[in-house]
Every structure is written in C-alpha cells, then in structure tokens.
C-alpha cells in the first residue's frame, strides 16, 4: 500500500500528465561517497568525474 501525502495533486499528476517528465532540469547524477563511486567505476570500467565541495557557506548549511 502506498501512502500519499499530497493525494489530490499526485493523483491529478498521475492521471492528467504523461509519465515522462519530472520537474526541473536534470543534473549530473552524483555518487556521494568515494567508496561507492570508486567501486562503481571499478565494476564498470568507466572514467571518473570527481568534484568536491563544502556543503555549507561560512558554516551555514543548505548551500554549496
């Protein structure tokens, strides 16, 4: 069973729109840990795009 926290909007979306597009522009799908990312790169043999960033600005969270 699925619990819906916004029953009406979700049902409206399910039945009124074609299930093909999500909100916002798609972004890079980031692995969030070195261990997980390296394991996936080793498994697939794909190259690595590595970035790092501080998950706060002047210690205020919620912003890179």
């Amino acid at each position, binding site marked *: *069973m*699925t*619990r*819906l*926290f*916004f029953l009406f*909007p*979700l049902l409206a*979306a*399910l039945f009124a*729109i074609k*299930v*093909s*597009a*999500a*909100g*916002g*522009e*798609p*972004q*890079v*799908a*980031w*692995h*969030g*840990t*070195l*261990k*997980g*990312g*390296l*394991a*996936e*790169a*080793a*498994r*697939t*043999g*794909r*190259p*690595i*795009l*590595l*970035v*790092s*960033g*501080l*998950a*706060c*600005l*002047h*210690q*205020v*969270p*919620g*912003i*890179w």
Partner: protein
Amino acid sequence: MDGSFLSTRATVEAARPFVCIRLATYENQDEVDFMKALYVSYTGEIANTMFALLSPDGKTRLSEADRSPAQVFGGVSQRRSDQPGATEQNKVAAARRVESMEVISLACPGKKGAGGAPQALPFLGDLRMAVNVAACDNQPLVVVYAEKPDELARLEKALQPIAWSKEVIGRALYVAVSDAAEYTRFIKGEKPAVGYALVAPEPYGRHAAPLLAIDAATKPDSVRKQLIAALALFNPPPKDFEKHEAEGLKAGIQWKPKTPITDRSRRQRGRSRRRP
C-alpha cells in the same frame, strides 16, 4: 562550490558516460586523504573545492586536478559572471570541457558487459549529510529504508533501473537508511516504514518532510510511475545565495564538518577569531 560549470545541459550529457563522484569536503578522513593525493593548495592542504577527471581505477589523472573546472578549462565563476566578456569566455570553456570529456569517454568506454547491468544507486553517505546535500542542490531525496540488510539490498536493486532511467536520472538524490532513530531524527512527520520515501529538505538541510511513501511490496512499475509523478511536482524556488547565507547567520544555523576545515577564507578566519 560553483555548480554552474557542471549544470549546463551539454556538460550534464557529457558526464553521463562517467562515474560522477561529488564528495562533501571535510566530512570523511579517507576522502580527505584521497583528495590530498590529487590536489593541494599553496598551504599544502586540500581546498574547499576540487575538480579532476580520473581513470576508472581512480589512480591516474586524465585532466589536471585543481579547485574547479574553471581552473582546468577556463571560464568565469558565477559570482563574476557580470564582468565584460564572461559569457563568451564561458562558452569557449564549456566547449573545451565537453570536448575533453567526450574524448575521455571514447578512450574509456567501459568494460564489455558492464553496460547491460543496472548501475549502483548513487548513494550519499548518511541521512544527515544527504538531507543537507539535497538542500544544497534544491532537489528531493529518495530514502531507501529497511532495518534488515537483505531487505535493504532488495529495495536498492529494484530501484536501480528506475533511478538511472531517462525520466528520473539527475532529478533526485539517494540515501540508504537502516536505523529508525536516524530516520526519525531527520525526517519529520512520518514514522519509518520499509520501502521508499521521497522527502523534501527544508532550506538549510537540517531535516526533511515526506512527500511520498512507497511500500516495499509495491511493484516496480508502480514505484516508477509514482516517483516520476512526484518528481514532476517538486519545483521549489531557486535559492538566493546571499539571502540564504545572511538569514542563516542571523538565525545562528551552523553546520559542523567532521574533519577540520583547512582552507578558510580571510573572512571566515576573521569571524572565527571574533567568536568567544
């Protein structure tokens, strides 16, 4: 971190053949050590941000490693984007960046047979970090929850093809949780239930509110449809960086990284000295 260099459509597409890893700086000593082996600033320590393209084993640099794509490929940061010629410089840099990534992905096409297997979910390390990163990205977070390891593994596996499908890829973040206390500490208003929860972070990423819960017994096609529909409805306003920072400072909202910050700006050093 200036995300503008890695959020253009061309760069996002060029990044798809890569395994993309984004580390939160100063949160894990092993990761700090790895970064330190790739790039250190003039202080001999890692910087707040880093960029590099690496071989599949993570041992060989396929580009220079530096603070950001701008240092490697050129371009002007978002904060200086109003300076004369910035738009043109960024176009040239973006083309150079995309070309380099395309050349590397052709040279490293991946192992034969690996392309057919579902990719691992791109998990964040823990729920505290995941909610903050979701707030940083202004994106929703999919929490995969089960206390039993085999159940968690089953849920992860079932979600893999959905997470990497063209309708869902790059539109949400992911974290696995097996501890009910951790769940209730960061997800407000709903008890943990085995399955998937799509949650929305509050702006400062201290906690998140549930948007949708999907029971573990739900069939994959239904999971997919519900997730796509819920993601389509998630459309928060963009963040005003300066306002966010100012209001956060005023409210005393602080994030404490798990390892020491070694790349403090002059402003940060001054603020630290002023604190009792």
